[in-house]
């Protein structure tokens, strides 16, 4: 399947994730796609604890423009408490 970002509705393809570094910022792993209106979207995996998906005003395949929507999905670890059995 082609991954033509100039076409509206191109799904974000995590198989095409790449490292993006903006000057002055830490490198981030990103994959790109476009929404049904042809606007640029990208999924950013920041730190292994969450996935951030940004949508920008720019048309896909052109300059991204500014972010106008950001979703976040967080994956917290289980809070795990153990009893301590002294002398066991």
């Amino acid at each position, binding site marked *: 399947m082609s991954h033509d970002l100039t076409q509206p509705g191109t799904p974000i393809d995590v198989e095409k994730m790449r490292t993006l570094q903006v000057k002055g910022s830490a490198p981030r792993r990103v994959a790109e796609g476009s929404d049904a209106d042809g606007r640029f979207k990208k999924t950013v995996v*920041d730190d292994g604890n969450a996935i951030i998906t940004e949508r920008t005003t720019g048309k896909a395949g052109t300059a991204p423009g500014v972010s106008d929507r950001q*979703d*976040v999905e967080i*994956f*917290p670890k*289980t*809070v795990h408490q*153990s*009893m301590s059995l002294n002398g066991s």
Partner: protein
Amino acid sequence: MAFTKSGLYTHTFREILRATTLTGGQIDLRLATYKIALLGAATDASSPVAFDTATVSWVNTNEVSGTGWAAGGLALSAVATGSSSAVPTCDVGTAGSLRYDHTNDLSVAGTTLASVQGCIIYADPVTSPADMADAMIVCVCFGASYSTTSGIFAVTWSGTGIFELDLTP
């Protein structure tokens, strides 16, 4: 300053095990009337993440709220996809452990939130005694700061639940 530690509120569990009479109903972790509030830049061992404090009433110190997420938090009955219930459960989890979990993960659309670093689940219906009103149950640290813009705020809980008490270590 970011806080770094998740935890359970010891005084809450002490009062549960002592069968302390509460106004608004006894602690029942299966209730969807309990709320989840968001937390920003708290400091470890300071309110509201001082887990050994003798007053466990939820407070809005360092709370994060915004568009789509009201101050005071959202009821668990409306935090899953489409404002459906999270359906909290409390049952045996990993062998020998007691697990608190939500059947449906948290997913709230249309939010604009800044610098969320964790969340607190608390017993909103409990009104007295004063040390147990709005009793906090658990605080989960997200490990970093997250924001949304007109978007979905989602938390996908671990397959081993929100918390587990290992009773057979």
